[in-house]
Every structure is written in structure tokens, then in C-alpha cells.
């Protein structure tokens, strides 16, 4: 419990970056703004990422910092790196979207949301947790509804806000009951009060799961996701579906393992049922989608179900696999949404049939899309395969075999609709048109982002030792801080 600047280093640097952007923005001419703002944000975030890796790594001992508000451990560190990376890539994609690329506000809101997520990953106090969740959500509501002239975008922001406000109020009510029962706000202090499972802890857990289920887009709290992803600016949708979801997982893992570790059997069962519903519903509804953004929305819902298995396992390997899953998923899904940014901009449509003959228009883009979709469907040698394998393995080890059977059946359904999209990309042709003469237009920031993501997907799937090591350290730090039973 002391002043520890390393514990909030990424957040502090991101805040400075945001202030810098707001100061510099009025000085730039309008035509320079798009390039300057985007490069400054992405470059600044990349620098923060490097700084965090070089000097921000926590020691083996996890410490409480800032009066017990945040915990400085490997779990928070790993997730912070993921969020900063995702935000940098999203900033690069945002440079390609008219309406947000020239506005300093959009980049600052992105940074604000990332600060909130970083705090979510490290929060170890109820007050800090609630504040961090809202710091994440409120900028994202604005970003989803940022395109004021676009009816779909405002509607997306509106629906996201209504669902978000309702579920965060339910979460807050749950947190207030946790506070009332425990009389304290720190996660570790509360763990002593919730040392045995009671009907009361069950009720509180339901309230908390509703609130966090919204962030994770678990069924039946997923209704906002398809509409918001479809309407929101595509890079924002990509950010929502990856970083925002990963932040929810960080909170879920920390809060449930530390504070409610003793009532694990209660929440494991609730989460297992939700995971089954989430996977099945996500995959089945995705089969019927005609819009690529909605398809990815339902696919992201089902992925939340797979990743949940790691948390349900509640073992060191389980949390490891969830962290690893989030890393692979962030890389893969950002790549998938990134491709939609470029195709949507050039062709003006997000319909799946707009992807006819993409392989002839832009072979490399189609290859990147193939890699992203194969990784989403869990094919080796890409990141998605290793992630899924680990999650299933952890669940089996913890005795959740029936859950894994459901998961595997769902993966097979998933393969079908991912490959259907690839069929349009590779086998179909646009009628009476020379596709090669109409390539998808791409810009330099876009190419950098897609290349980094594609290489990342392959790297995570082949040389997975360093990433696995990071995930293991993260999980170990979570369990090391637990009270001996």
C-alpha cells in the first residue's frame, strides 16, 4: 500500500498522450490532421507498449498499490499490454474511416477507454472496479455513436448506451450488496467475508454476472452486440469485440477467483450454463447472417463462450488458457475487422456477397482474411487453434468434459460459416467484371496494421512458448495472491 508509479505507468502515459493530442490538434491544418493524429496516437501507444515492456514489468511478488485500489501483478500487466496493442492497431484502422479520422476527440476517447480497461485489469477494490468499468464504457458509447450523419451509427451508440447503463446499474447494485455484506471494499478483505457459499452469495453472484455478462456479450445479455457492431464505425466495432471483452475477462477472473474463490461451485455452474447457451446461440444465429459485421458479432459472442471455459475451470491452467485465448482472439478478430474496414470503404457494402472475387481483386488481403478466419475457426497452425486447444484441455482437466463436448460441436458449426465466407472470397466471381482491375484500396497505416496482425496470428500459433509463458505468469500471479485456505 504505497505510492507506486510503475503500477499505473501505462495509464499515466496514455493520459499524457491524450492531453498532448488535444493540445496539438488545433495547431494542425485540416488536411494534415488525419495523418498527424493517427500516427501520433498509434506511435505514442507503441512507445507506451515498449516502455511498459522495458520498465513496467512487475516482480514475482504481486503488490497492492495506491491505497489498495490497484494490484500490480502479471495478470494486470499482461492484459494492459493486450489493450495498448489493440488500441494502437485500432488507431491505425481509424485513419481509414471518414468522419472519425480527422477528429482528435475520437482518438482521445479511444485512449480514455483504454485507460479504463487497463484499470479494470488491475482494479482490486470495488470502488476502483466500478469507476474503471464506467471509464471504459462511457467513451465507447460515444465512439459507437460517433458518426452523427449515419443513422445506423447513432442507433448503435444509443442501443449500446441503454444496455450498458442498465447492466452497469445492476452490477452496481450487486457491488453495493457485496460492500454491505463484507463491510469493506478491497477484494482481499472481502474474500475473508465470503469464506463460505451461502444463498446470499449466490444472489450477489447473479447480479455481478449480469453486469459482467454485458461486457463479455454472453447470452442472454448479448442483444446489443450485433446491432452495435453493425452500426458502429468498423474499427470501433473491432475494438469493442476484442479489448472491451478481454477487459471483462480480466475482471471476471480476478474478482471471482480472489473474492468468490470459496463459492466457486456456485458461479462455475452458472457460468457453465451461460457458456453453453452463448456458444450455441452465437454459432447457430451466425449461420443465418448476410452481413459480415453481424456474422463477426455472433462469432465474437460464441468466442466469449469458449474463453469462458478457462475461467470455469478455475485452475492455474484454466486462467492461463483464458489469457492466451484473449491474446489470440484480439489478434485474429482485429485482423478480421480490419479487412472489413478496407473492403467496406472501397466497395461501400458490408454484405457478404460484396466479398465475391476478393481473391482476384486483392490476393494478399484475401490471404490475410483466410488466415484470420481459419484462426477464428480454430485451425492449426494459427493462434486460434492453440488457444482453443488450451481452453478445452484446461476444462477437461478440471472435470468439465460435457462442456468441452458442447464446445467441440460448436467449433465444427463455426468452421462451416467461416469457410462459407471464404468460399465467396476465393471461388465466386463478380458477374461481368474484371476484378483484378478493381483492387481494394489500402493505405500505409492500414498495411502496417494488417501485416502486424497476420504475423501475430501465425506467430502465436507456431512459436507459442513466450506467449504461453506470459499467460502462465499472469495466472500464477493471480493464484499466488490468494489466502491459504
Amino acid at each position, binding site marked *: 500500500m504505497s505510492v507506486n508509479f510503475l503500477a499505473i505507468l501505462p495509464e499515466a502515459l496514455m493520459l499524457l498522450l491524450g492531453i498532448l493530442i488535444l493540445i496539438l490538434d488545433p495547431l494542425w491544418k485540416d488536411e494534415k490532421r488525419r495523418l498527424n493524429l493517427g500516427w501520433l496516437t498509434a506511435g505514442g501507444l507503441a512507445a507506451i507498449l515498449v516502455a511498459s515492456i522495458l520498465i513496467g514489468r512487475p516482480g514475482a511478488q504481486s503488490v497492492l498499490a495506491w491505497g489498495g485500489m490497484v494490484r500490480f501483478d502479471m495478470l494486470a500487466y499482461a492484459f494492459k499490454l493486450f489493450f495498448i496493442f489493440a488500441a494502437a492497431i485500432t488507431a491505425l484502422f481509424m485513419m481509414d474511416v471518414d468522419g472519425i479520422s480527422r477528429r482528435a476527440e475520437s482518438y482521445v476517447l479511444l485512449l480514455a477507454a483504454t485507460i479504463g480497461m487497463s484499470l479494470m485489469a488491475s482494479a482490486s477494490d470495488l*470502488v476502483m472496479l466500478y469507476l474503471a468499468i464506467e471509464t471504459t464504457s462511457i467513451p465507447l458509447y460515444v465512439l459507437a455513436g460517433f458518426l*452523427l450523419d449515419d443513422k445506423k451509427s447513432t442507433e448503435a451508440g444509443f442501443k449500446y*448506451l441503454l444496455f450498458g*447503463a442498465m447492466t452497469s446499474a*445492476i452490477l452496481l447494485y450487486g457491488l*453495493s450488496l457485496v460492500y*454491505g455484506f463484507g*463491510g469493506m471494499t478491497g477484494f482481499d478483505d472481502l474474500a475473508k467475508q465470503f469464506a463460505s457459499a451461502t444463498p446470499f452469495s449466490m444472489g450477489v453472484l447473479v447480479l455481478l454476472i449480469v453486469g459482467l455478462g454485458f461486457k463479455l456479450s454472453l447470452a442472454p445479455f448479448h442483444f446489443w452486440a450485433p446491432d452495435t457492431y453493425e452500426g458502429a464505425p468498423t474499427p470501433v466495432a473491432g475494438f469493442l469485440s476484442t479489448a472491451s471483452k478481454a477487459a471483462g475477462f480480466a475482471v471476471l477472473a480476478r474478482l471471482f477467483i480472489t473474492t468468490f474463490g470459496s463459492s466457486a461451485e456456485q458461479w462455475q455452474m452458472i457460468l457453465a450454463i451461460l457458456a453453453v447457451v452463448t456458444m450455441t446461440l452465437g454459432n447457430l*444465429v451466425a449461420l443465418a447472417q448476410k452481413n459480415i459485421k*453481424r456474422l463477426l458479432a455472433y462469432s465474437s459472442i460464441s468466442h466469449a463462450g469458449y474463453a469462458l471455459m478457462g475461467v470455469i475451470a478455475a485452475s492455474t491452467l484454466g486462467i492461463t488458457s483464458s489469457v492466451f485465448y484473449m491474446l489470440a482472439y484480439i489478434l485474429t478478430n482485429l485482423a478480421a475487422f480490419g479487412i472489413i474496414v478496407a473492403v467496406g470503404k472501397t466497395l461501400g457494402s458490408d454484405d457478404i456477397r460484396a466479398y465475391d472475387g476478393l481473391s482476384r481483386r486483392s490476393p494478399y488481403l484475401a490471404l490475410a482474411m483466410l488466415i484470420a478466419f481459419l484462426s477464428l475457426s480454430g485451425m492449426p497452425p494459427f493462434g486460434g487453434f492453440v488457444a482453443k486447444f488450451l481452453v478445452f484441455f484446461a476444462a477437461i482437466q478440471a472435470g468439465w468434459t460435457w462442456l468441452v463436448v458442447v464446445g467441440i460441436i460448436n467449433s465444427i458449426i463455426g468452421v462451416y460459416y467461416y469457410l462459407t465466407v471464404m468460399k465467396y472470397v476465393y471461388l465466386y466471381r463478380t458477374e461481368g467484371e474484371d476484378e483484378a482491375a478493381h483492387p481494394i484500396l489500402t493505405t500505409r497505416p492500414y498495411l502496417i496494421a494488417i501485416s502486424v496482425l497476420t504475423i501475430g496470428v501465425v506467430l502465436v500459433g507456431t512459436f507459442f512458448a513466450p506467449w504461453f509463458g506470459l499467460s502462465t505468469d499472469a495466472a500464477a500471479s493471480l493464484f499466488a495472491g490468494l489466502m491459504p485456505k
Partner: protein
Amino acid sequence: MVPLSWYIFLSAALFSIGLYGVLARKNAIAILLGVELMLNAANINLVSFWRYGNNALMGGQVFAIIVFAVAAAEVAVGLALILSIYRSRNTIVADELDLMKW
């Protein structure tokens, strides 16, 4: 002194009324009002638990004050979004905002 349970019942009732409002009302402003009721129900909980619990720790008070601030920010963003919807669509009835379905 009024027993703690009275406050808890009050807050539970307020929360339920708010939740009902959010789920049943069609008007966006009314939905936001319902959310406010739910947040205030949580605030009553926090402050009364603090008063009847360990007064030396200020956690509950601080929590309630932070909830005020967050609720204000949320409503500000909410009303801004509702305004932008109203400008482009001329309605704020949630059921009529159905450009996207399934």
C-alpha cells in the same frame, strides 16, 4: 433508530421500480430515468450499509459520491446520443429505432 432492514427494503423497491421502468418503458428518456432510479437504489444501499457498519472506514461514502459523478457523466452522454438520434430520426421511441434486426 430505524433498523437497517427498512433501508434495504426501500432500496430493493426502488431498484425494482427502476428495472421495471427500464424494461417496460418505450421512451428513451424514461428508460434513462429508470436507470437513475436503479443507481440511486444502490446509493441508498451504500450509504446505509456505511452508517450501520464500520463508520471509521469511508469506503461506502466514497463509493456513493463516485456513483453520483459517474451517473452524471452517463446521463450527459445518454442525452447527447438521444439528441443526435432525435435530430436524424425525429423519434426517441426505442421500438421505432429498428434499422438493424437479427
